[in-house]
Each structure stands twice: as C-alpha cells, then as structure tokens.
C-alpha cells in the first residue's frame, strides 16, 4: 500500500511543478568564470543590504553565458550574462531571433593579466617581443622565417635568466587567451620583426599574418591550460621554471607563492593598469536582458548596486579584490539608471 502512496505523492509533485513554476523572485546570472568572483562579491553584499534574495550566479564561460541569455524571454531563462569579452554580432542575431531585442551592455571595470613564476625562482622582466620569440612556432632571424629553436629565456633575450622556457598559457576556450594573443603575442610579433616576415610570406594579407603570428610552438615549451588558474598555479608549483598566465586578482590572493614579472618594464597593479601603463588588460562586462527588468524583483536594484561607487569605485570591495575600476563609471551609472540598451555593433 505504501507504494500507492508514494506514487500518488509523486503525481502530486508533478502537478505542483506545473503550477508553482511561475514566479521567480531571484535574479539569475550566468557566464564568465573571470567575472564570477566579482559577481559573487556583489551578489553577497546585495543580499545582505537589500530585502531581495541573493542573486544566483553561475559560471560556465562568457560564450555559454551570452548564449543562455539569448535563449529567449521568460522566467526560465537567465537575466544577466557575465562576459570577459565583448558581445559578438552572432550573439545579437541569436538574441534577436529569440525575441531578446533590448540588451544593456554594462562595463564593470578592467582586469589585468599577469605573468608570474614560482616565488623561489629568479625574477623576470619581459617584453611582448620576448614572449613571441620564446613561444611562437616560427620566428624571423634576419628577416627569414625559421622554426623556433630557443630553449632558454637567455637565448631569447640575454637580459633574462638562463632558465628553460616553459609557459602555461590559457587554453583557447578562455576569454583570457584572446587578450594574451592580441596584446602579447601579436604585439610581440610586430616588435621582433616576425610580423613583417609573415606579411611578406602572406603577400601583405594582414589577417593571415596575424594568424601566423599566433601559432604557438607545439614542442612542449608552451602548454595550454584548459582549467582554471588553480590548475595553472599547481603546474607552476610542480615545475619551478614554469611561468603561468594569471588574472591580477588571482595573483593578489597568492602573492606568497608567486612572483610577478614586469611587462615592458611595468609592474602590474591596479594603479598601473588603470593608467594604461601596463599593456595587458581587458574590459569586463555584463549584459542585461532589459525585458526582465520589471519582471524580476530586485534586478534593477542589483544592477545599480553593482555599478555604484561604493561597490565598483576605486575604494570598493571589487577594487580591493583586483578589479581595476572604470574611470567612466559615472557614465555607466547614468546608462543603467535610464536603462539605455546598447547600440548596434559597428
């Protein structure tokens, strides 16, 4: 008889599912794992200071988050997508085809990307050209392209320590990799003259030359890390001559294990990134589905709280954790208050 009872309660459960699935009272956020810690800090403070429930923040990657945002309008879709790279036209098209027309782009600040090695090893002072010469598949020697044969940093640049080259770079699915490719590898390619050689080889096609620049060597000197910074840290810990690519906030939480290298003579810090001196940084965003603003309680309040001076300002908890605050924050606050959707990408 108890089986009959459980079966009945199971049916009742399903019935309840269809009725009470209606109202959602918490903000749902998904997206970039780089933005996740900042969003979690804000969500936590929001839950403490407002009567609304704490928003739910999911990770899963920038691209996946934007795709989820564009799945449609309705309470079983997310409200906000965190992203460490700018939204793409393909995302906007997908959104439009699913009825998500008004999206608000909110830039929360800048994130620095740092190069760090084990604390007990020698100190490094890099330039982008060093990184390209060390990691690219092909480098130019006297204008002639040849396979990269550098095995130690000293061979790349005599000012660097004579340590074996071993770099842990973010895997291609990470938004960080895009910035690394763009601001370090391609920039270095142009500095050390390989870019010109690639231009000549590709008949002046700039895109093809850049692509050729980004080809990293595959002989085990450059290792793609598809996991998180915690994995990169574990690899650097196991290989004392390894150099890892980290986010500034991650490095700041592990300064007792890592020492940071300078890039172009500049030490990465919140200050040097905000002045633009330190070259490797990128903006962080979140994208808001405007159609949900009046439906989900607390959503507008959460967004305004996120970009308020006491949170995202230079003295707020986000800056303390490693976010470089946006000098144009006041403009963002106005935009959020007026719910201005983003203009089409040009």
């Amino acid at each position, binding site marked *: 008889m108890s089986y009959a009872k459980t079966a009945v*309660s199971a049916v009742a459960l399903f019935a309840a599912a*269809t009725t009470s699935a209606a109202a959602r009272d918490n903000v749902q956020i998904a997206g970039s794992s780089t933005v996740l810690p900042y969003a979690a800090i804000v969500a*936590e403070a929001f839950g403490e200071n407002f009567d609304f429930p704490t928003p739910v923040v*999911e990770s899963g990657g920038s691209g996946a988050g934007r795709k989820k945002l564009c799945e449609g309008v309705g309470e079983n879709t997310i409200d906000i997508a965190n992203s460490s790279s700018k939204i793409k036209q393909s995302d906007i098209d997908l959104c439009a085809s699913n009825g998500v027309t008004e999206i608000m782009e909110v830039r929360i600040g800048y994130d620095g990307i740092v190069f760090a090695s084990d604390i007990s090893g020698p100190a490094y002072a890099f330039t982008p050209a060093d990184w390209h010469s060390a990691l690219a598949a092909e480098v130019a020697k006297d204008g002639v392209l040849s396979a990269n044969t550098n095995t130690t940093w000293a061979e790349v640049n005599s000012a660097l320590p004579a340590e074996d080259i071993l770099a842990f770079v973010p895997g291609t699915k990470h938004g960080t990799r895009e910035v690394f490719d763009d601001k370090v590898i391609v920039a270095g390619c142009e500095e050390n003259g390989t870019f010109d050689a690639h231009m000549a080889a590709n008949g002046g096609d700039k895109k093809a030359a850049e692509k050729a620049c980004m080809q990293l060597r595959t002989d085990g000197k450059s290792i793609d890390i598809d996991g998180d910074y*915690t994995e990169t840290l574990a690899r650097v810990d196991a290989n004392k001559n390894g150099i890892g690519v980290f986010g500034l906030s991650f490095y700041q939480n592990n*300064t*007792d*294990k890592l020492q940071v290298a300078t890039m172009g003579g500049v030490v990465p810090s919140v200050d040097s990134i905000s002045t633009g001196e330190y070259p490797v940084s990128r903006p962080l965003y979140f994208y808001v589905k405007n159609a949900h603003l009046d439906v989900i309680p607390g959503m507008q309040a959460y967004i305004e709280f996120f970009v308020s001076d006491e949170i995202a300002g230079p003295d707020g908890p986000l800056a303390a954790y490693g976010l470089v605050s946006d000098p144009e924050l006041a403009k963002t606050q106005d935009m959020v208050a007026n719910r201005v959707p983003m203009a089409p990408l040009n």
Partner: protein
Amino acid sequence: MNDITAAAAPEAARKRHGSLLVQDARTKTRNASETRFRRLGLLAVALGMLALVGLLGSILSNGLSAFKQTYLQVEVFLDPAKLDKTGSGDLAQIAKVSTFGYAPLIQAAMQGAAKEAGVDTSALPAKALGQMVSKEAPATLRNFVLASPEKIGQTVSFSLLANGRIDGYFKGRVTMESAALDRNISPEQLAFADQLKAAGVLETKFNWAFFTAPDASDTRPEAAGLGVAILGSIYMMLIVLCLSLPLGVAASIYLEEFAPKNRFTDLIEVNISNLAAVPSIVFGILGLAIFINLVGLPQSAPIVGGLVLTLMTLPTIIIATRAALKSVPPSIRDAALGVGASKMQSIFHHVLPLAMPGILTGAIIGLAQALGETAPLLLIGMVAFVREYPAGPPEGLFDPAAALPVQVYNWTQRGDPAFVERASGAIIVLLVFLIVMNTAAILLRRKFERRW
C-alpha cells in the same frame, strides 16, 4: 588390464620412490606458482590500500581543519551617531546604513579589545586591525541591529569570525614567512593575533557554521559553509527516492513476473542495461532539453536535479530489483498459487517481501551514486553561487539550491587558498554521507537476507 594402465603403473610407482616429505620438481613448480599468485594478489590489495590511504590522507590532512574555526570575542559599541543618524529609532532609517557603514564600529571594537588585553597596537594602522576580522562581520552586526534596534547605543558582546588568513595562521596554513610576502596579511597582524589569543580574545571553536552557513564569496572563505548544498542534496535525494523506487520496482515486477518473454521484452532488457552504463552527462543534456526548455521548470532548482538523477538511478534500481525478484525461489510462488492466491497476491504478499532486502540495497546504492553525481547538474544550472536557503518542500524544491559535489567543484576553482581546506572538508562530509548510506545498505541486507 589394458595397456594404458600398464604403461602408467610403472610411472606412478617410480614417483613414490622418494619420501612424501621431500617435494619433487613438479610439486615445487606448482607450489611456487601458487605462492607467486598469492603474492601478486597481496600486492594488488596493498597497492589499492596504499592509494586509498594516500587519498584519504591528503583529504583528511587538508580538510579536517575546516571543522575548526577561529572567532574573536569582542565588545562592540553600537554607535548611534553611525547607525541612527536621525536618532528617531525608525527601522527604515536604520536599514539604510549598509554593511559598509558598520566597518568603523568593528575597527573601534578591535582597538578596544587590544586595549583591554594590554596589547600595544601602535605598530598597526587602525585599518589593519579591522582587516583581521572577517568581511562577514559587518553583516552579522547589521542583522543583529535590524533584529533588535533598541540595542543601539549599548555595548554588545559579539563572537565574530576572524579573517581567513588569521584562521589559517592558527591552522598552520599561513606562516610568518608567507605573511611577509602576502599582501592580504602582515606578520605584525599575526603577532597581534598571537597576543589576542594569549589574552583569550581569540579562540578556536568547532565550526558548526560549516554545516549550516551558505556559500560565501571569494573575499570571505572563513564564512563559507555547506548549508545550502546539504539542503539541496537532501531535496534531490528525496525526489529520487520518491520517484525512482516506485517506478523502478513497478517496472521490474512487471518485467520479471508478468511480461511475456519475447523479442520486445528482450529489447527492453538490453536497453535498460545500456542505460545503466550511459555517461551521466547525457542525462544532464536530456534534463536541460526536456525539463527546463520544454516543460519550463526553473533553472538551478532541486526539482530538475532530482528528476535528472531519477532518470540516472532508475536502471540501477531496476537491475537490482529484478535480480532480487529472480533470487526468490519458484517454490514460494507455486505454493502461493497452490493455496489459491492470485498472481498479484502471490507477488505482493510473498515474493516482494522476500525480495525487499535486495531491492533496498539496490536503491540505497543507486541513491549513493546519485548523491555524488556532478556532471548532469552542470548543465541544469546547479553549479552556481547560491546563498539563499531554499524554502521548505514542496515549494522549496523549485528554489535555487546547490548540491554537495557541486560545492566541492566550486570551491576548488576559487582563488583564495583557504578554499582548498573548505573543499576537502566538504569531501569529508560527502564521504561520511556515503559511508552512512552504504553501511545502512549492508546492515539491511544482513538483517533481512534469507538464504535458500
């Protein structure tokens, strides 16, 4: 007598020439191969044990400290000038003071505690004193003030969480050397913490909050707990139990006792065995497509997690139940039918009760498997930062929640090293749950099992 025995006889006769106590060459090789096999077996067991000891050792050494937490006993003066500027005692006005407004109170309280303990803090700036307290503390104070606004203007004794780095210092994770390199803590602060400990202001207690508190952000690992994850896991297990046990048992009884044996039922049987081996992530994809996109159930909710895990557990339960039904001897059925019971009566009154221990064991093992599953939850939005407790069932089944294995996964990705301890602590909790469930399965089997 034929030739064969005649030929064999002298052979055998020759063998017995020597003493029985002296082994001949063939016996020796046979004995040696047995010894070799035994040693190999022993080696395999030893290797397995070694791996287990290594695993448990690393988890326990990292994680046991999560069950202790450092607290500061301080007297906080609830300054009316800061908390109730208008002096009206109006709750709406008091609520306007955000947690940021409470930080100066904590700073002042730390200075007071230092003075009382007779510690000279002139080497430390006031801000550094405030940093020794968890960022969770302002929220603790604010909740207290909002709950009892009449206490404003009084001095109240609080037990506040110490900062994760201070906590790590007393657990051996942070040392003076590492603090010198760490931008989040200084050796002076640690030295001050030592003095506070000697004065009894700072104490290490059992960490009940680890089981009850919700997750916390990266800036306050000391406040992170498993409350929401444990609740979410319990909800999901309830759903799995309520759905997969009746469904699975009904399906197996029909297949085993009523269904005709033909190609169609063979096909079903093969499919069930196949489903039991399907990678769990596939069920997650299915759950996303059906329960969230088609049915429209909410994301991150235990109901969806429970349904997905039900699908995953069903084959396990069906296979176990069918095996249990099969092992009931046919004589029981025949006897029941013989005294005039209907087929259904024979099954429900006689076969099923005898098969129950096997069914329960299968169900508990299936549940334990579902409890430790992460991959399918990844796709339905349960791998998330959730701080709100879900409401009581049944509405709570539709509220966002985390799950135990998901919490482990989340914490291993955090930047602050203190989360390594939390993650290992969560693994220990999960292991204890699993051990309890498996022990229950063994005990049930021992108690009710009948051998024929």
